[in-house]
Each structure stands twice: as structure tokens, then as C-alpha cells.
């Protein structure tokens, strides 16, 4: 291994014109447009990066332009909302003239963590949270159009923010983008959002069931109180609560309730 592969280059003064930023950003919405089992996101990454590569000296006439496009069209995988981090960081590396060998190592190392962070933050946390928020609104009696608007509004706000933040963070940090991924929002975010989604599930599901069944009595206050108490119990004893024990406790409460009522 050469020394150039052990240390990414430092800060540079390369900047992107506003029109290039916009071109790259809007292309990010099509990053999965040519997804396939051989290159996965590879073609999309090259497509998104292309406007930035035009800024290489001599632009499209520079042999490095074609070499860079070919390099980034190869196999690459990441979460689509975090692809902007890769596009920004790799474009910056190309414009900084980083060696192809180091860029190859970097893109190999970057894809997996971007997939992992995205899966945990978006698929496992943000998407359930937005769905449950909409379900809770339905349970509270919101009109169907408002329920749909709440889901689409919150979910899309999240992914638009992630795409914009990712592109900016990737380009500004370049090969040192690990520091941006160490942001507390990304590190602790999935856990916090996941906990909020769990609490919301405790509120939304009974509320929605109550509205669907139509038992004639609005139990919102009781449901929220029980869900919050449950949240406190899980936060305090979560590590010791296992599925079968929890099931036994709930079963016991049902039996107790049916005896005393």
C-alpha cells in the first residue's frame, strides 16, 4: 500500500457555481433511474456527478472527464437519500485531482456506511414515524386528505433535507466526509426517532382502531397516558423486558381486568 492510500488530502478551495449545485441536486432525484443488479446505483452516481465533472480543466475535452464518468458508473451501492454524500465527496475528489487508486478505495469504503446509516435512519425510523403520525391524525378524526397530506409532507420534508444536506456535506468535506457522518443527528437520530415512533405507535394504533370500530367513546386521553407510562417503563427496564415476559404481563393484566370489571 502506498502512503497516498493511507491518508486523504486536506481542505481545498474548489467551489461549485450555483447552477452546478442545482443541476446535481435535481439529478439526485433520478439516482435510481438506471438501477440494475450489476452496477446498482453506479450509473446514477455518475449521472448526478456529471455537471460537476464539466468543471475539470478543459471540461469535457479533458480525458479525465471520461475516465471519471466510467469510474463512477461502475458498481456502487448506498441509500438513495444519502447518495448525495457520495456524489458530493467523489466530485470534490475528482476536482481536487485525487489519484484514481485512492478514489477507488474511498468509494468502496463509502457505500456500505451510507447504506447502513440510511437504512437505520429512514427505512427503520423516519418512514415508520411519518406513517404513525398520519395514523394518529386519522385516529384523532382528521379528514383522509389531511392524513395523506401529513404523511407526504413530513416524509418528503425529511428526505429533501437529507438529499440537500448530504450533497453539501459531501462536497465540503470531500474524502474526510466521515466527520460529517459522525454528526450526532445521524449517530443518535435513528434511536431517538425509533423511540418516538414506538411511543407514537402506542398512541396511534388504539386511536385508529377506536375510530374504525366506533365504540362511541373517545379514549384519547387514556390511550396517550397509558402509552406514555409504557414508554417510561420500557425506557427504565427495556434491557430486561423480553417478548415472552411482556406477553405474560399483558395476559395477566387482561385476566385481572376481566375479573375486576
Amino acid at each position: 500500500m502506498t502512503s497516498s492510500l493511507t491518508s486523504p488530502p486536506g481542505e481545498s478551495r474548489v467551489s461549485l457555481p450555483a447552477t452546478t449545485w442545482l443541476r446535481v441536486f435535481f439529478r439526485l432525484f433520478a439516482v435510481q433511474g438506471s438501477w440494475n443488479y450489476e452496477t446498482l446505483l453506479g450509473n446514477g452516481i455518475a449521472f448526478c456527478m456529471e455537471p460537476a465533472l464539466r468543471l475539470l480543466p478543459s471540461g469535457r475535452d479533458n480525458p479525465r472527464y471520461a475516465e471519471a464518468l466510467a469510474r463512477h458508473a461502475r458498481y456502487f451501492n448506498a441509500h438513495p437519500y444519502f447518495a448525495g454524500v457520495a456524489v458530493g465527496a467523489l466530485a470534490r475528489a475528482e476536482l481536487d485531482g485525487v489519484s484514481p487508486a485512492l478514489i477507488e478505495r474511498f468509494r468502496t469504503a463509502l457505500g456500505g456506511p451510507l447504506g447502513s446509516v440510511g437504512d437505520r435512519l429512514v427505512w427503520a425510523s423516519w418512514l415508520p414515524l411519518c406513517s404513525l403520525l398520519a395514523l394518529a391524525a386519522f385516529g384523532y378524526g382528521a379528514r383522509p386528505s389531511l392524513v395523506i397530506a401529513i404523511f407526504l409532507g413530513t416524509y418528503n420534508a425529511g428526505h429533501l433535507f437529507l438529499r440537500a444536506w448530504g450533497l453539501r456535506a459531501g462536497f465540503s468535506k470531500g474524502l474526510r466526509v466521515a466527520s460529517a457522518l459522525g454528526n450526532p443527528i445521524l449517530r443518535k437520530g435513528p434511536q431517538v426517532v425509533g423511540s418516538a415512533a414506538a411511543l407514537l405507535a402506542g398512541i396511534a394504533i388504539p386511536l385508529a382502531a377506536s375510530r374504525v370500530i366506533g365504540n362511541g367513546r373517545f379514549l384519547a386521553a387514556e390511550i396517550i397516558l397509558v402509552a406514555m407510562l409504557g414508554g417510561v417503563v420500557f425506557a427504565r427496564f427495556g434491557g430486561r423486558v423480553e417478548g415472552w415476559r411482556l406477553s405474560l404481563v399483558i395476559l395477566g393484566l387482561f385476566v385481572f381486568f376481566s375479573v375486576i370489571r
Partner: protein
Amino acid sequence: MSVTLYRIDDRLIHGQVVVGWGQPLNIGFIVLVDDDIACCDWEQDLYRMGVPPEMEIVFTDVKGAISNHAGYVSDKRRGIVVTPDIATMHRLVDGVKTIGDVNVGGIHYKAGRTPRLRYAFLSPEEERELSVIAEHGVRVTAQDVPNARQVSIAELLLSKPVEEKSA
């Protein structure tokens, strides 16, 4: 045994490993076995960002993984050992005779490789190396995520390439 999965995956740390396998198996640590990454701090920083704060990630080369394997097994937490390619897993299996199962989780397209499954592209040399691992008494199967069908090595190597199947 606290190492619940020995996985070959060229993406190493990613969503399928951390979320797909990590959550249902309640994984507490991941051992990333790669000779190059083991001596490269900035690459380690990147991979470290891919695991949640409560999950430990250990970077080691093959030699270190073999000498520390007893420690992984005796750990009270459950763990995953992941290598980037078949050759690295082969060296690990050669050095640790107690490894009983190896999971092919992701080997993606590269020139010279034939698609065997959607997530497993193998060159003739890699196919031979997988067979050698299996001949050591190791049960080799392919499975990308826990709820997917487990494919035996015989089925993996004897199967027609993916394009021909779908044609």
C-alpha cells in the same frame, strides 16, 4: 457460541448487515476482517460511522482474527464476522477449525464474474475456492437477509446464471 454469522460481503458494513441481520440477531459486535482496512485509519472512520453507537466494531487483519477468535466466541454478546471476499474467508477458515457455517451475503458484479444469484456474482476461481471451503467440512450457504431463502452451495454452483433463468 457468540459469533452467530460468518459472512462474505464485499460491502462489509451496510444496511443488510447492521439492520437486516443485526437487529433480529441482537448483534453486539461486528468483526471486520480485512488486511488493508486494518491498517488504514480513515477507512476505519468511515466504516465506524455505519454502525450504531451501541454496536462495537473491531477491525483486524486475518492473522489477528485467527489469534483473537477464541475471544470473539467467548464474548457474552452476539457477533458477526465479515470478510470482503471468499479468499479472506478461506484463510480465516484455514486458521480457525471451529467455524462450521459460512454465509455468502453479497459478492457483486466485476469483470469475469458470472451472476449466480441477484447478490452473488462468482468467477470460476471463486467458485473453486468456495468448494474448497466446503470440502473442509464447512456448511456454505448463500442468503442475503434473514427472511430470504437459504441457498446451498450445490445449488449455488450448479445453478444456471441468473440471466438464463429469467430468459
